[in-house]
Structure formats: structure tokens, C-alpha cells
């Protein structure tokens, strides 16, 4: 039996609700985007219902402490197809067992969730580290990113607390939405880029006059801080994987 859901978090939680309602035995949960009908397998399409999802979430809140609710949410944000199935079975497992079952690291769903959460938290932390703002002519600090996982919801508070006195935009170019902080709160935005605009690096004409100066100073600093006698390229690339270099001011040649 395959359960198909719409890919949303409420959809996933509704699927858990439906399973307990029907108890159809062994089930595999798949998102509609990747579902391929199979000839001899039955499938059931879950209709997302917020009141059902809310009840399941409230149930999880009763059974799990904050750290595990966060792991659950992070695993969902990974957007990995297999993660949805693990989340579904994890939730069922939690409801079917007495409190504390989440610390059973011998269980495959428990260990899977803790691994997804670890990857997503690592990506979140990398975004907190590797995002580089560029100041535009109108005083806005802009950064375009395309993280491996959907981490914008996780980094919003960090940047809001930290950059409370400057307007900023962090835009996820892959998922086509972004965050804008307007000195009071953070809003979700979408930008329609006109053709020819370099989304990751806005043109120099749009920049604050001192932007280039500070970028140059930062690149100089990066070079000066290196100790040539200790060169260790392998370690360098391990800490800053090449796919992130495009964000990093200090890694740009010009």
C-alpha cells in the first residue's frame, strides 16, 4: 500500500492521521511529485486537512520534547523523498509506544531522523557562516543563496536578532522565495528578476560606493591570515566545500 501526499507538512501529518483511522497494515509514504503508479500496488491519496494535521502535531507535542520536535521539522525541511517515509513511520512508532521511545537509537526511523536533522542543521549553520551581504546603493544588505535544504525558516531568527539595525534580504534562488527584514519584522518575499540580472551578484552600479572597498579589504585580510608554511588544501576544502565558494567574497578572483 502506498500513501500519496501533497508534499506539505500538514499533508504528511494528515497521512499519519489517516493511517491510524484505517490501520491498513504496511504502508509506504510518497510525495505526489515523485510518485510513479505501479501495476500491482494499491495506492491511497491523502487529502490534506488542517484540523487532522493539527491534532497529530498536538499529539506529537505531548509525546516529544522540543529537541525532537525540531529534529522532526528539520527532517521535513530536508526535502529528501525517503525522509517523508521515515517521518511517517517515526510518528506512527512514537504514537504506538510509551513516552521516551525516541531515544531508541537502535530503531531505524529514529536513527534516520537524527541523521537528516544533523544534515539540515549543518546546512543551516553553514548558511549562518557563509552568507555574505552586499550593501546596495539604497542601504539594503542583499545575499542570494541556493542551499541544499530548505533552511530559510531556520535561519530567519538568527539574522533578525543579529542584524537588527540594518535592512536585509536573503533570497533562496533555487526555491524562489526570500526573507526581507524591514527593521521591524521579517517577511517572506518573492522577487521577479528581469532577464539579464545576475541574481547572485548584483551589478556594481547598484552597489553602495564603499562596497567594493570593504570587499577588497576582506580579501586582503583573508590572504594575510593564511600561514603558507602550514598549507593544507584538503582540510580547507573539507571545511569550505567548493559548492559554497560562489557565495564567498574572499573566494572571488576579481
Amino acid at each position, binding site marked *: 500500500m502506498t500513501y500519496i501526499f501533497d508534499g506539505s507538512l500538514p499533508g504528511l501529518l494528515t497521512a499519519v492521521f489517516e493511517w491510524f483511522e484505517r490501520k491498513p497494515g504496511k504502508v509506504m509514504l510518497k510525495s505526489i511529485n515523485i510518485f510513479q503508479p505501479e501495476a500491482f500496488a494499491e495506492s491511497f491519496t491523502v487529502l490534506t486537512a488542517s484540523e487532522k494535521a493539527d491534532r497529530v502535531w498536538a499529539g506529537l507535542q505531548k509525546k516529544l520534547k522540543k529537541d525532537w520536535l525540531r529534529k522532526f521539522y528539520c527532517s521535513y525541511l530536508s526535502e529528501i523523498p525517503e525522509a517523508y517515509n521515515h517521518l511517517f513511520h517515526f510518528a506512527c512508532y512514537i504514537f504506538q509506544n510509551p513516552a521516551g521511545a525516541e531515544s531508541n537509537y537502535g530503531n531505524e526511523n529514529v536513527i534516520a531522523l537524527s541523521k537528516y536533522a544533523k544534515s539540515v542543521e549543518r546546512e543551516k549553520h553553514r548558511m*549562518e557562516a557563509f552568507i555574505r551581504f552586499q550593501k546596495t546603493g539604497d542601504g539594503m544588505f542583499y545575499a542570494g543563496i541556493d542551499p541544499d535544504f530548505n533552511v530559510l525558516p531556520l535561519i530567519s531568527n*538568527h539574522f533578525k*536578532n543579529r542584524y537588527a539595525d540594518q535592512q536585509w534580504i536573503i533570497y533562496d534562488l533555487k526555491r524562489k522565495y526570500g526573507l526581507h527584514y524591514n527593521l521591524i519584522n521579517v517577511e517572506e518575499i518573492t522577487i521577479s528578476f528581469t532577464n539579464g540580472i545576475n541574481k547572485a551578484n548584483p551589478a556594481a552600479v547598484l552597489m553602495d560606493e564603499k562596497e567594493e572597498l570593504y570587499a577588497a579589504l576582506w580579501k586582503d585580510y583573508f590572504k594575510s591570515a593564511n600561514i603558507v608554511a602550514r598549507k593544507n588544501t584538503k582540510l580547507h576544502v573539507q571545511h569550505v566545500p567548493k559548492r559554497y565558494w560562489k557565495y564567498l567574497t574572499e573566494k572571488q578572483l576579481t
Partner: protein
Amino acid sequence: MSFDRIREKLNILADAAKYDVSCSSSGGTRKNDNKGLGDSHSSGICHTYTEDGRCVSLLKILLTNHCIYDCLFCVSRKSNDVKRAAFTVDEVVELTMNFYRRNYIEGLFLSSGIFKNADFTMERLLLVCKKLRLEQNYNGYIHLKTIPGASDELIKEAGLYADRMSINLEMPTEVGLKLLAPEKSHADVIKPLDFVNKQMIQLRDEKKLIKHVPKFVPAGQSTQMVIGATPESDKDIMYTANAFYKNFALKRVYYSGYVPISNDTRMPILGTQPPLLRENRLYQTDWLMRFYGFKVQEILNDANPNLDVDIDPKLSWAIRNMQHFPVDINTADYKMILRIPGIGVMSAQKIVQARKFGKLRIDQLKKIGVAYNRAKHFITCVDSPYQMRDYQGTQIKAFILAESQSKYLKTDSNQMILF
């Protein structure tokens, strides 16, 4: 300010500061509650890594590299023929604010050569901190060097604005220090470390009685030793580190492999490779002391005054103490599980939680994150294969070395590979 001049100053003063290895930005507790700039992140953030693989989280600069001292191991020593420069207070403030706003850095690491005298230097450092905190509403991280010999009042005031303060021991023993820097002594370092530590303890006690006491060096103190410039043993180094952790409640001791910068015959000659492997083994020992419940005497003693080069100190201890092994994963104490080679803190915690739900098997241990190929020589679990014979520690060492390749051993063979 002229761009070219600032650029030149930054190059000189960042270059001179880079031998200070501490770049940690953790442990800060400052919150952005004044709608200013910056908010600390409890575990710290490394914003980038240099090509030598070291983290860059702070803007690490000297206020000036003019110095009245002539310490042999230091690039800024008086007799060294290098370009000298000095930042103004405003220049440092402006650089810090603008780097921070672009998310380049977690904060500022400010040190300085000693110009005129200790108090004069400390005053300037303090001025930078006060400007950032009071005028710019800056709540980011500040790591400040305590200048040995500065007055108690200045140090005390600096502690109110800095997150971390540090003073470097430089050489692991007094004898080593006297050899290279006759004007300095460990006592100069101990006095201010002790003073700051006592202030921290006093404020912690007051906090129990008064609700609002000012923050005072919330991320604690640290120090640094240069390794390999003088002939100390690993035991000398780690016993000193251990004493400083104990006596002054230090957050960190850093070990910095000496990078040759002088032609003086008392030290390794120019072009000598920095002792990176030794440095790594010392950090491993440091971790074993702080997070794995090892006493320094268990790892280093008169019989073993230096750490093994080919294997890490945890494995080395296990092999010398085979009477404790094998350990039964399903019944052993958490403390004993921590001592098994191939099992780290996270895995050990998961094991003790998971085994409440049933006895653990090999495949579960692997999924939990245990380095099983290493750990298998030291553990038993439900489905461990039956061992016909007891292996000697030396045999186990040979097994492990045969299947692992140290990252420090560069392809050394001139042997042709035919197949």
C-alpha cells in the same frame, strides 16, 4: 581615510597577528537587546577557513606591531626588520563594524605590541572596546589580549566589555621562556590570569544575591603555548596545560606548532616544517582530558613522556591497558564506554540510551556512528564473533595500522606500483 594606507596597515597588522591561533567565538552570552548590531551565538561560527585549514571567525589584528620587547619567537620583536604600522582607534572600530555588517566575521580579536608601556597599550585596547560597545551599540564578540603588567583597574574595566580575555604563556616551561625571552616570566602571565579569574568568581557569587550584575568576560579566559621551539617533552607541555586548566579555570589552552621566523641558533632553522602532527596529538590529549574523563597522568607519565606518533593517545592508552578490555557494550558504565577507541561522546551517549530498549548488535552500533573496525578489538556486543585467543596490545596495534592510513604520512614510497 585613504584606502591604500588602510589596506597596507591591515596587511601588516593581520599578518603579525596570525600566529595567535585562538579564533574561537563561542561562549558569548551578549544579546542584542538594544536594537543594535550583533548577537552572540553560543557555539560560535567559523565564517571561513584559510588555505591552511584554520578557521576564521574573528577579525584578528594587532593595534600596532611596534614593540619594546625582543622575544625571539615573535615576528614583531624589536630587533626584527619588518614594516611597522599602527591603527587608530577609529579605524579598528570602522573595520569591525563594516566587516560584521556583511557577515564576514563574528567579532574582533584585538591584540597589540607593547608601545611605551603596558598601561598605555591597555588603555588604547580598552578605548576600542568602549567605542564599539557604547557608541556603536555593538554586541558582537570581542576577544581582548590582557597586557601583562597593566594595572588592575584597566584590566577590570576591560573585562566588562570583552567576551574573552587571554594571555599567552608562549613557552610551556619557565626555562624555555627564559631562553628565548629573558625579559619575560610565567609569573607575569599568572598574575593577571589569576586576577581576572578571581573577578569572575566574585561576580558569580554576587549573582546569587543580586539579580543584575554586569557581564564580566562571559566567555572566559584562554592561553597559548608555542610547541617545538624549545626542547620540552609532551609531558611537560600537558602537565603545564593541566595545571592552568585547574588553577585558573581556563576555557582553552592552545598549542601552536612553531613556524620558523628567525635565524637564531637557539631555535629550529628557517624552512623547518612546523610540527603539525605533534600539535594534533597534543590537541587530542587535551580533548581526552576535558571531555573523556582521562587524567593527564594516565596518558603521559615518566614511563611515557611523549605521545605516540603513529597512533592517537586514546588508542595508545587502550593498548597499554588491555586488562580493561574487552568492554561489554550492553552493560558497561558510560565512563568506560567513552574510553573505547573508535567511540566518541555522541556515540557513547546514544549507546547508553539505545540499550535500554534491547541489547545492541553490530549493525546497530555501526549506524549509531561507532568506528567499528577500530572498536571491534575492544568490545563485545550480542553478536560479536567468538574470539579463540587473546591478542596482545601490540598485535592489535599492528592490525589497526595495517588497515588505516594516517593523513600525515604523505605518499612516501619510491616503490613503483606495478598492478
